[in-house]
């Protein structure tokens, strides 16, 4: 059966909620994030702020340089979670096949739906209208035969827009897409693709499967499929957590490797606390260390290991630090998790925290 997938994405969600609750914020550039003197970063900002070049993940200090009259609001996660639940409840009236990607975005599968003569476009329209009326924020939607295209489409007429890719339009739509629109193609991959003469999905189609797999591994096969508008991934009702991590931005940059290493025990303790609190215990398949340098360049180092101890994290931290050799503003540590549950035995470490 022809699948019908809708990707719903709230427009600058945190900012929209704040603007809804406080009318004086509606006409000025605002951002949700940590304050500049505590070296906070921007989580979201409204479209007025975006016109000044303010972006997510930018330091608040930098954002204020770009837009001195920016109003920075500290976030209220409990409230956002509540609003998110309201939105999800509206989706639930149309289908139970919902895959939330975060608080403000979800895939919903309305294949075979009885609502509105089974028209995905009409369902998306009605969802958008109801979210605006009942929740008070705007939401953009993309309607397409699969997740990849639905996600691209929801961004097409953002904010407060909808875009529909009908099955017979898939081919034409995909051909014009720049490869950067493909999720998973970041700057590095885009650069690599450009080197072999690929900038659009049309260029990508000219490449053989063998060539793409050679250059990009398993992702090559995916690029091959996506450039043809093929994406068989089902909408998964409950997303399995793939990793767990904690990170910390330091009030003052950590000047050298020693001071970074000194932070590890605290981070590890927090990570292990979160790990033991997981609803379903899960086996560990690897460890990750993320380092963000003072200039916001960030790097991650990963290692496959079933029984990690602090020495693994220390070595990864050393490796990551050595790539930048400059002061560090943020360190993150995480475990990669196996799909399977954790009835695994725990191999104890001989070397302790050596």
């Amino acid at each position: 059966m022809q699948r019908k997938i809708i990707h719903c994405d709230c427009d600058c969600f945190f900012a929209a909620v704040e603007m809804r609750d406080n009318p004086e914020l509606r006409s000025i550039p605002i951002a949700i994030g940590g304050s500049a003197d505590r070296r906070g970063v921007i989580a979201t900002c409204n479209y007025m702020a975006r016109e000044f070049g303010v972006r997510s993940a930018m330091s608040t200090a930098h954002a204020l340089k770009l837009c001195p009259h920016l109003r920075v609001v500290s976030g209220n996660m409990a409230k956002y979670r509540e609003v998110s639940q309201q939105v999800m409840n509206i989706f639930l009236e149309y289908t139970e096949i919902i895959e939330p990607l975060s608080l403000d975005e979800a895939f919903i599968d309305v294949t075979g739906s009885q609502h509105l003569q089974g028209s995905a476009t009409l369902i998306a329209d009605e969802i958008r209208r109801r979210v605006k009326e009942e929740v008070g924020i705007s939401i953009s939607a993309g309607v397409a035969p699969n997740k990849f295209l639905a996600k691209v489409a929801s961004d097409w007429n953002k904010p407060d827009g909808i875009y529909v890719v009908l099955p017979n339009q898939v081919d034409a739509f995909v051909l014009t897409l720049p490869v950067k629109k493909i999720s998973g193609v970041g700057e590095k991959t885009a650069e690599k693709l450009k080197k072999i003469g690929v900038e659009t999905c049309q260029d990508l189609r000219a490449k053989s499967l063998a060539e793409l797999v050679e250059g990009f591994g398993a992702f090559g096969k995916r690029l091959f499929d996506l450039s043809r508008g093929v994406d068989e991934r089902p909408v998964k009702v409950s997303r399995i957590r793939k990793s767990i991590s904690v990170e910390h931005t330091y009030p003052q940059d950590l000047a050298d490797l020693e001071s970074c290493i000194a932070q590890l025990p605290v981070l590890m303790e927090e990570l292990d606390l979160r790990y033991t609190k997981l609803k379903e215990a899960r086996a560990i398949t690897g460890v990750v260390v993320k380092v963000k340098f003072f200039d916001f360049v960030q790097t991650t180092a990963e290692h496959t290991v079933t029984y990690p101890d602090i020495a693994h994290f220390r070595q990864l931290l050393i490796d990551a630090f050595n790539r930048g050799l400059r002061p560090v503003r943020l360190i993150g540590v995480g475990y990669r998790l196996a799909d399977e549950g954790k009835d695994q035995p725990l191999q104890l470490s001989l070397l302790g925290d050596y």
Partner: protein
Amino acid sequence: MKFVISREALIKPLQLVAGVVERRQTLPVLSNILLVAEGDQLSMTGTDLEVELVGRVTLDEPAEAGSVTVPARKLMDICKSLPDSARIELTLTGQKMVIKAGRSRFSLSTLPAAEFPNVEDSPETLELSMVQQQLRNLIDKTGFSMAQQDVRYYLNGMLLEIADGKLRAVSTDGHRLATSVTDVEAEDGLQHQIIVPRKGILELARLLQNGDAELRLVIGASHIRAHVGDFTFTSKLVDGKFPDYERVIPKNGDKILLSDRMELRQVLSRIAILSNEKYRGVRLALSPGYLQVMANNPEQEEAEETLAVDYDGDSLEVGFNVNYLLDCLSILNSDVVRLTLSDSNSSALVEGFDEEGNLYVVMPMRM
């Protein structure tokens, strides 16, 4: 460059030297071996930049001198495929190495000898002599515990320590540790530690085939060189700090179990069949006079066996990765093995009853 050599004389050193060459190379010349002919001497060199092996052969008749590099694997495959009694003539013609034997003729590509890299030398700091069997034995007794591609790079190798007239080898992957020791002639008070990378250890072991023949080790600040008969082997050292093995060896174990080594090994191998294939956990339950071994797997299958042992301590139940125990039991020589434990969260010591010098530490698994 031209020389003639019998297949018999060429094949063994060629196989050893080509063994050092990695299959996948970033630098084309590294998949080649260097051939240098001079007078009645032929030398062959293979390297992967971390380790280097030079083998020397005396030729029956003087060569036309010269040097060049040729693809290692192809040269080896050609020599292997020739009849045992073949006499092989190698002639450098232009940029091709022409190989003739009987009615066969091969023309191999070459790269100039000048492109072939040297493993860098460092000033010598000490020299040791022993018989080959001594080092081979250390490696055989401990090599299996080396880590492999661990991010803690200093574990991907073997610690060699010279102290008090003894040479000690230690390897650990973080879950178990193996150590073995042998007497060597060294100056009084000489203390030195090096970490030889995993590949260096494995290649060195292949080379140490003549038990009683001499082995001379030259150790520099960043390399180790072994002179073994007609071969010179060089390996870079791992620059890192190895864990303090003394700290890891448990000293307070009060539960001592003696068992027939082969019997225990057989019991563990049987029970292991139904352990979790990935984690390999087995449970040992000690009680006076008996050891019970149990395993189960995610399919809910179970195995259990009890054997009589010499034990009169308190009851204790403790889990282990069965492979770690089996590795120790396979490598020990004594008929009787001694396990020293303290509790289910502390490391166990595994030794041969009358076997000096070889010691294994295994950390339990919480099951």
